[in-house]
């Protein structure tokens, strides 16, 4: 590398500033108090890096060429289209659809990384006399394959979460064989392109296979496991971006990509751990049939005790302490607003109301926190599992709203698919009231002995109208 000019040196400092803001953004996310500031800081750093690149690349780019200025329009046009699409998507999406929105944004990033890798390869393979340097080709191949998998994988994840593609695990006949063949082919092409001939057509074939691989890998995973998959694909995109950073000798890309690659990997690990499963199990076990009525039946035989809203309302209104246990059903029913109202009424009557939040309640980590925060439930009422588990014993009513697996006592026994998963000790409460629509199982698709517990009463129906009925009941009590 020749001596750097002043603009190039300044560029390094801009990258450094950007990188530090990205690190701080992730760091600040460790506490709800600082999280938002952190995100804004990261956005600010990003804006600086982008603006600087836009304004100075004719001065600073080591690859600056005369004809370049004429290409500003690409960036302006692309930037405006992207910004409008991104903002609209982000602003319009309902809170329940967050995971699929993240999946789409992640797919966009993966696609961009793949495109950059392809464009760079085309550029230099074109001019090429002799073989390109090995590190460059390897980084390009990596960027293309990982970015490609992240792109199509994210699209499938989006489809599954949105209900466009079937949410159930979909295995091709000979799934493992196909997957193996795809990756073997990519490996062979990769070795040939890197070591023998920088062939553009073969590189493009390689990219096409990567796109197919993303689909093939994601289809067999159940819809309810998608948040874990999105997190993993997020990590992949990070790695692809880091590879582009290598290719372009751009430290901002390198650091940002690596940060996300590492943090995505550990986050995925944390998520699977909270579900008491291994990543391997998530990716290859075809678990996660997206729950619901489909898997019902098994416990249909048992006699469940039904109750009605008026009785439950009275029970709560004259109790000393009520713990509300929200689950995926509350999210589906969009019942968080009425739940807030119910809480307010009970609190006004002097009842001590708390929320017990299981770490994997819902379908994404923090799902319940986000929904309840949206409904303005003060977050000092939200208790984490370890904090509240001992309090169930002197609780009058545990109100389970569309939660199932996270309160399933069979997790305490051997031999169940959820054995060993820590659960909320709802069965220690004096009275247990469960709100659900019918006899559907939870995400894990297994029967729940809690429902036939003698202390349990079922309040059937969609959670939203059920809660609204409770609100009326409490008002009259």
């Amino acid at each position, binding site marked *: 590398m020749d001596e750097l000019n002043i603009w190039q040196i300044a560029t390094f400092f801009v990258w450094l500033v950007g990188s530090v803001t990205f690190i701080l953004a992730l760091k600040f996310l460790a506490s709800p108090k600082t999280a938002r500031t952190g995100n804004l800081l990261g956005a600010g750093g990003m804006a600086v890096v982008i603006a600087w690149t836009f304004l100075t690349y004719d001065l600073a*780019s080591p690859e600056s060429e005369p004809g370049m200025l004429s290409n500003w329009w690409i960036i302006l046009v692309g930037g405006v289209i992207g910004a409008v699409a991104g903002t609209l998507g982000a602003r319009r999406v309902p809170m329940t659809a967050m995971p699929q929105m*993240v999946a789409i944004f992640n797919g966009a990033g993966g696609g961009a990384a793949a495109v950059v890798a392809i464009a760079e390869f085309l550029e230099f393979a074109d001019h090429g006399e002799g073989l390109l340097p090995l590190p460059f080709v390897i980084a390009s191949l990596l960027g293309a394959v990982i970015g490609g998998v992240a792109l199509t994988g994210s699209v499938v994840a989006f489809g599954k979460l949105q209900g466009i593609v079937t949410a159930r695990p979909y295995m091709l006949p000979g799934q493992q064989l196909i997957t193996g063949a795809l990756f073997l082919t990519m490996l062979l092409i990769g070795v040939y392109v890197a070591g023998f001939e920088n062939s553009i057509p073969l590189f493009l074939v390689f990219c096409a296979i990567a796109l197919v691989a993303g689909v093939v890998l994601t289809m067999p995973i159940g819809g309810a496991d998608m948040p874990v998959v999105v997190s993993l694909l997020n990590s992949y995109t990070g790695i692809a971006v880091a590879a582009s950073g290598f290719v372009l000798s751009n430290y901002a*890309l390198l650091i940002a990509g690596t940060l996300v690659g590492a943090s995505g990997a550990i986050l995925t690990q944390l998520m699977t751990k909270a579900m008491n499963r291994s990543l391997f199990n998530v990716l290859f076990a075809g678990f996660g049939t997206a729950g619901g009525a489909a898997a019902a039946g098994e416990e249909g035989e048992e006699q469940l005790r039904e109750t009605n809203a008026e009785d439950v309302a009275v029970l709560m209104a004259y109790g000393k302490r009520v713990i509300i246990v929200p689950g995926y059903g509350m999210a589906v029913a969009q019942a968080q607003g009425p739940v807030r109202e119910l809480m307010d009424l009970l609190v006004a009557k002097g009842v001590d109301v708390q929320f017990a939040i299981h770490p994997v309640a819902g379908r994404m980590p923090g799902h319940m926190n986000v929904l309840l925060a949206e409904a303005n439930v003060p977050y000092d009422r939200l208790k984490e599992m370890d904090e509240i588990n001992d309090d169930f014993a002197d609780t009058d009513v545990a109100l389970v709203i569309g939660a199932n697996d996270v309160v399933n006592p069979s997790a305490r026994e051997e031999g169940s698919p959820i054995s060993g998963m820590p659960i909320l000790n709802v069965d220690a409460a004096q009275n247990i009231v469960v709100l659900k629509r019918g006899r559907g199982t939870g995400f894990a698709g297994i029967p729940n002995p809690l429902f036939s517990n003698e202390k349990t009463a079922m309040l059937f129906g969609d959670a939203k109208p059920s809660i609204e009925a409770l609100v009326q009941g409490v008002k009259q009590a």
Partner: protein
Amino acid sequence: MELTAFELLSALFILVLAAFVGYEVVSKVPTMLHTPLMSGANAVHGVIVVGAMLVAATSEGPVRIALALIGVILGTINVVGGFVVTDRMLEMFKKRPGER
């Protein structure tokens, strides 16, 4: 296309250190914030738009221009959408008992 050994090696050091930073920083985040974290990290890798811009800057043929345009669009969606959606999620966490 000038990647000297020293450049590659420096990049390798930076990569290893950044991986440690990412690991350490994220392992402190509580479950409650895992979804905003995922989404925030997602926004950060949107910096790839800078790479797409550099591609755009040196594009000449229609193929490369098309690629550059796609790259810039996708990258911008990632970065803008990512930060906006994260902010929306976090906005909710900021509300305090007294403030509502």
